C-alpha cells in the first residue's frame, strides 16, 4: 500500500492508501476530517472547496498521489489559524454576522471559496464586484446566495483591516 505525506491544517500527516483515491476521501474516510462535504464528486457543486497552498481547490478532483510532502492543505477546520488572532477567520465572523447558514451543508465550501476569491481579487489590486460574485460556482440548495454576497463584502473589508 503506497504511503502519502502532506501538510494538513498545519500538521504533517501520512496515510497509507491507493494512489488514485481522491483527496476528499482521504480527508473524510481515512483521516475523519469532515468539514469538506461531498455534493457531486465531479468538481461541480464545490461543497468540498478547501485550500492548497493558499488557493481554492476541490479535493474531490485531485488524486492523493498528485500532492507532495510540502503541499499545504487547509480545510474549514484549519481556516481560523490562517488569520491573525485566536478567534475565527474574519470571513467566518462575517458569515455569523449575516447569519448566512441555513442547513449549513455547503457553507464550509462557500467560506473557503470566498476567502480565496478575496485573495485573488486583492492580488489584482481591486475590490470584489458583482461580476466577481457571479463567478462563484458553489451550490447552496437552501438558496442563501444573497446573504453570501453580503457576507463576502463584509469579510473582505475585515480581511483588509487585518482582523
Amino acid at each position, binding site marked *: 500500500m503506497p504511503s502519502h505525506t502532506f501538510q494538513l491544517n498545519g500538521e504533517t500527516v501520512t496515510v497509507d*492508501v*491507493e494512489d*488514485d*483515491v*481522491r483527496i476528499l*476521501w*482521504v480527508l*473524510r*474516510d481515512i483521516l475523519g476530517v*469532515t*468539514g*469538506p*462535504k*461531498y*455534493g*457531486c*464528486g*465531479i*468538481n*461541480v*457543486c464545490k461543497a468540498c472547496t478547501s485550500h*492548497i497552498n493558499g488557493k481554492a*481547490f*476541490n479535493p*474531490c*478532483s*485531485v*488524486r492523493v498521489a498528485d*500532492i507532495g510532502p510540502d503541499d499545504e492543505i487547509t480545510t*474549514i*477546520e484549519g481556516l481560523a489559524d490562517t488569520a491573525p488572532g485566536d478567534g*475565527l477567520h474574519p470571513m*467566518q465572523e462575517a*458569515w*455569523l454576522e449575516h*447569519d448566512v*447558514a*441555513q*442547513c*449549513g*451543508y*455547503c*457553507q*464550509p465550501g462557500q*467560506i473557503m471559496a470566498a476567502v*480565496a476569491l478575496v485573495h485573488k481579487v486583492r492580488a489584482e489590486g481591486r475590490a470584489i464586484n*458583482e461580476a466577481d460574485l*457571479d*463567478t462563484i*460556482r458553489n*451550490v*447552496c*440548495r*437552501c*438558496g*442563501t*446566495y*444573497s*446573504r453570501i*454576497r453580503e457576507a463576502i463584502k463584509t469579510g473582505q473589508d475585515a480581511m483588509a483591516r487585518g482582523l
Partner: protein
Amino acid sequence: MGTHNSESPARVSRRSFVGYVIGGTTLIAAADLGLTPSAAQAAPIPSVPQVPELYDLNDFLTHCAMPTSNLIAIEVDEKGHAHFALPRMEVGQGITTAVSMLIAEELDLPVDDVHVTLAPARPELLFNQLTGGSNTIISMYTPVRVAAAIARKALLDAAAILLGTTAAQLVAKGGVISAPGGSSVTYGEAAAKAAKPTTEKVEVKLKETSEHAVVGKPHRRVDARAAVTGKKKFAMDLDVPDALPTMVCRAPELNGTPVSIDNKGDVEKMPGVTHVAMIPTGVAVRAKTFGQCIDAVRALEVTWNSGTVTTMSAKDIKAELKAGQIPLAVPKVGATSVDGEFTFHFRSGSALEPNCAIADVRDGKATIWGGLKSPITAQEKIADALGLLPTDVTVNVVQGGGSFGRKLFFDAALEAAHASKAFGAPVKLMWHRADEPRQGRVHPMAVSQVRATVLAGSVLTFEQRHASVACDFTHGLGERLTAEVAALPTGLSNLSFSESIFMLATEMPYNFGVVTQLLNEPKPAVDRFNTSSVRNIYSPDVATASELMVDQLAKKLKQDPVAFRRSYLKSDVVKRVLDRAAELGDWGRSMPAGTAQGIAIHKEYKGATAVLVEIDCRPETVNREVRNAVTGPRVTKAVVVADVGLVINPAGVKAQMMGGFSDGMCQALTYSNHLVDGHFLEASWDNSAYTRQWNTPFEFECEVMESHGSQPGGVGEAGVAASMAAVACAYARATGEMPTEFPINFHKPLHFETKPFIPSVPESPTDGLAHTY
C-alpha cells in the same frame, strides 16, 4: 368536527395550561404535545368560501397532533441548562433555533443555555413526529412554552424554599433567581431541589406576547458557529464503528431493478472493496472509501429489468395529463373568456446533502442514523423489510443538509438497512449525485388549465384544473387522514388523499365570482415516478398559473396589475403585503424596454406573501456567458413581503423567504428534469440548473410585517409560490409573451452533454489542481 377542538381537557382557562413535573432525580417538566389553542374552529363551513379560508392544511396537521396524549419534556440539569429532544427534524429551516427561543423566553434563560436535540423515533407519538407542511412551530408553539413555564415554576418553588421566601417574591432572569434582599440561587442549584419523587400535575400561565423579550427579536441560528467552523455533523460525518462507505449501482432506466451481477468476483477484488450484493434497488458496494465505491460501481456489470416508464418521455406524460384532466364547467364564450394552459415539468427535490443513512443490522436488531422527517414510518417500514419487529429497530434522527420535501421519505435508510443485512456489517450508505436527479424523488409534473370569464368589467368565474403526476404521500400522513376522515369538514371525506391535501392548501384569494380549483391525478399509482411533497407541494405551480391569468385579466380590463389585484382581493392580510411590496419595490417605475417588474401574491400557511421582482430579458443579459452555466433572463431585484402570523425569529423568517425565492425563481426560469425514453437526463447540478450566483438578484429585500395574528404561521415553504409566480409575471411583461411551459427554457436545446447511463455514475476528475484560484 365542531366539538373536536373546543376546550382541550388540559386547558383550564384562556391563558392557564396544565402540565406535569415528572417524578425522578432531575427536574423534568412536561406538557401534552396535543395542547393547541391555534387550530381553527372548523364548523360550520359555509359553501361559498374555499376550504383553506376556514380550515387549512396546517389545521389538519395540528389536529393530527391533538389526539395523541403524549408528552414532550424539558429537563433542567445541574448547570441550570435546559435540554429538549424535539420530535421534529431540523433540515436548515431553523426550528431548533425557534424552539430554543421559545424555551428561553418562557424559562427566563439565555438562548445559549438551551440545548435542543432531535428525538429518535417515538412510536407512541403516532403521527405526531412528521416534519412537513411548515407545521413544526404552529404545532409546537403551545406545548413547548407550557413545558418551559412548568420548569420555571418548579425552579421558583424550589428557590423559595432555598431562600426562605415565597415564589411570588422572587425574580428569575438569565438563569438566576433572586430574592428581594439580594440573595440568589442559580437554576442549577434550584434544579436539584426542584426534582420530584413522583409525577405531579401543575397549572401555569404563559407570558403575554407583550412581555416577550426573546421571541420576536432576530436571533442567529443556534448552530451557526458549528456550521461555519465545519463542526456541524451530518449523517455522513458520524463516526459509527466499522460503518464503511457504501454506494449503489443503479439501473439505466428509472426504477429499473437488478436481475444478476455478472462480475461480482472481479469487483470484490478491487482495491478497498469489502462487499458486493444485490439489494432491491440495485447493487450495493461497500469499501474503505467512497472513492473506491465509485470505482466499483463503475466497474460492475449488471443485468437489469426495464424501468417503470420505459420508452416514455415528457411529451407522453403531458398528453396523459391533458387527457385525464377534469373538464372545465363553464364553456368558452368568445370574447368574454380568458383561457390559459400551463405545463410544469419534473424538477428534482434533491438537497445538497445526498440521500444517505447509516445502518447496522446484525443479530436480529437494527440501528439507523439518518436525516428523517417521518422516523416512525421509517421504523415500521424498515422493520417490515428486514423481517423484524419495530421494537427491534432503533431510528436515530440526525440534522439534515436540506430537505425540501425529499427527507419525508427514507429511501437511503431502507437501502442501508438492506445492504447492512446482506453484508452482515454496518454501512454508511450515500447516493451519488448523478443518481439524485435521475432516480431520486421529484416534484410531480403537472398541467394546469385555467379559464376565467369577464363580463361588463367584472370577473364572473375563475376555474382551474390541475392535473398532476401522482404525488407520493405514503410517508405516514395518509393513514392519519384515514383515521381522522370522519372528523374533517364537509366535503373532504370523499376525496383521495392528494385531492384533500390540494383542497386544504389551495386558496384563490380573489372575489372572482364562481371559483373552483380542482386537482386530479389521472394515474394514481405512486410507483411509476418517485415523487414527494417538494417544498410547497402543488402551490407554486397553481399560483404561477393563476397569477399569470390574473395579469391577463387585468390587461383585458385595462387595469394596472396591482390596482386590479387590490380591488379583487378578499383578504386584508393579502392587501397589506401587496401594498407594502408595491411600495418597497417602487411598483410602476419606468423601466427600459426588455426589462419589467412583476408582482404576485400567495395566501397559505396562515399568512400571506407578496413578491415584486424586476427582470432583465435584454439579449445582452440573456446571452451572457458563464462557463457551463445556464444564464438567460436575470432577475435583478426582488422584494418579498410576508405576514407569517406571530413571528418567533424574524432573522429565520427572512432566511426562509430568501430560500423560497431562490427555489421559486429557478422553477420559473431554469430548473428541471428532462424525461426522455424512460429516464431523466440530468445527472449533476450544472445539468439541473438550480439557482446559482450568476442567477441571483443584485438586490434582495425581505420585510416581515408585524402581524395582527397571535399565533405563529408556517414559514419554511411560504416564500416559494409567490416568488415563482412573480418571476413568471415579470417575464411575461418584459417579453410581451405569457410563458406557458416551466421552466421557460425547457424546450431550448439542452445545455449539457448527457452523461452515460451505464456506468450509472461518472468518474471523479483528476485535474483539480488545474483549476485552483
